[in-house]
């Protein structure tokens, strides 16, 4: 039985540079939040891939289920008028 058994799983998010969102890069196990950040630095940012790291315990994430994909995202499916390409504008109108 390894001493690491029971360490929670953390999902790791890295901000590549200022002005960008944090993006999910992978996961790791750590005994606590602080050590998770340190481990994430070693595993996921060996080449200046980031300026900021978030770690979140995987069991703290609430997700939509893929099984519910259709009903969950259906309400936006038939609202094409939310996209700019829905509208016909004559080609010679400038700056629109």
């Amino acid at each position: 039985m390894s001493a690491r058994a029971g360490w929670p799983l953390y999902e790791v998010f890295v901000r590549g540079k200022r002005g960008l969102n944090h993006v999910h890069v992978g996961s790791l196990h750590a005994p606590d939040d602080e050590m998770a950040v340190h481990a994430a630095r070693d595993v996921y940012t060996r080449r200046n891939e980031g300026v900021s790291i978030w770690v979140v315990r995987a069991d703290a994430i609430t997700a939509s289920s893929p099984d519910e994909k259709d009903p969950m995202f259906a309400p936006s499916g038939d609202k094409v008028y939310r996209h700019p390409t829905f509208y016909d504008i004559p080609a010679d109108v400038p700056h629109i």
Partner: protein
Amino acid sequence: MPAPPLDPVVDEARLQELFDATVAAERRIEPRDWMPEGYRRTLVRQIAQHAHSEIIGMQPEGDWLLRAPSLRRKAVLLAKVQDEAGHGMYLYSAAETLGADRTDLTDRLIDGRQKYSSIFNYPTLTFADVGVIGWLVDGAAICNQVPLCRSSYGPYARAMIRVCKEESFHQRQGYELLLTMMGGTDEQRAMVQDAVDRWWWPSLMMFGPPDTDSPNSAQSMAWGIKRHSNDELRQRFVDMTVPQAEFLGVRLPDPDLALDPETGRHRFGPIDWDELKRVISGDGPCNAERIARRRAARDDNAWALEAASAYAQKHGARS
């Protein structure tokens, strides 16, 4: 009124259809999607074996960390060996999205229930081996891994993209090391040639058995978790490597190696498949040593994990 979710038992045929359609459309399967049990099992084995190879792969080169000829070479080698550990971590992380447990996977490696690449069971006799591993072994790994960036399983494909970016540094540092040695003394050039002689054939074996003896390939190709046949990848590697060897000024140890003017590809001599079988089944030059070292790392360093757990407990209790 939302439709109820599909039931994995009642609606299996429908779920299989959705899965097949996703793979056929070159979209990715993600962790919580339904997937055939064989797909999950095969992927866990493939990803675990890949992860184990990265971890065991630290050993042959790690042997030279304390004997590197300069501080520059030592820093480079240290960074490379650290990368291999990182690659192992990305891959274990991907395997865990399929329900595997990494502590259990490590135990399976140490117990011999799961395998790793045959190439790491050969010894590194001189510092030229460090260069040849970067050039040939990492070069072969790149041939294998680039197509896996398009694996149908999302987490594996994403891990491969990270790995491939870093492998490029590995191959270039190796080739540069060899160029430097080839510009040195006769003795250094002889060391490079000797290392090439020893690593060439095992590098070709890295691509696995010939297509005629690779029974699971067809299913893996259909699932999109294998993209090209073993022989096709091996051929690409040979074609890529021959001009690099010429530039370097080394001889590849195969009298049958020749360019076929009709196909533009290289013919090469027969591979000793018995040797590959022997090494895979545990009878290579360093199998026992590699596993013993991995076992010692697990057991002798257990105290560090225990200390981290104790610290977390104490720290958590105080705050």
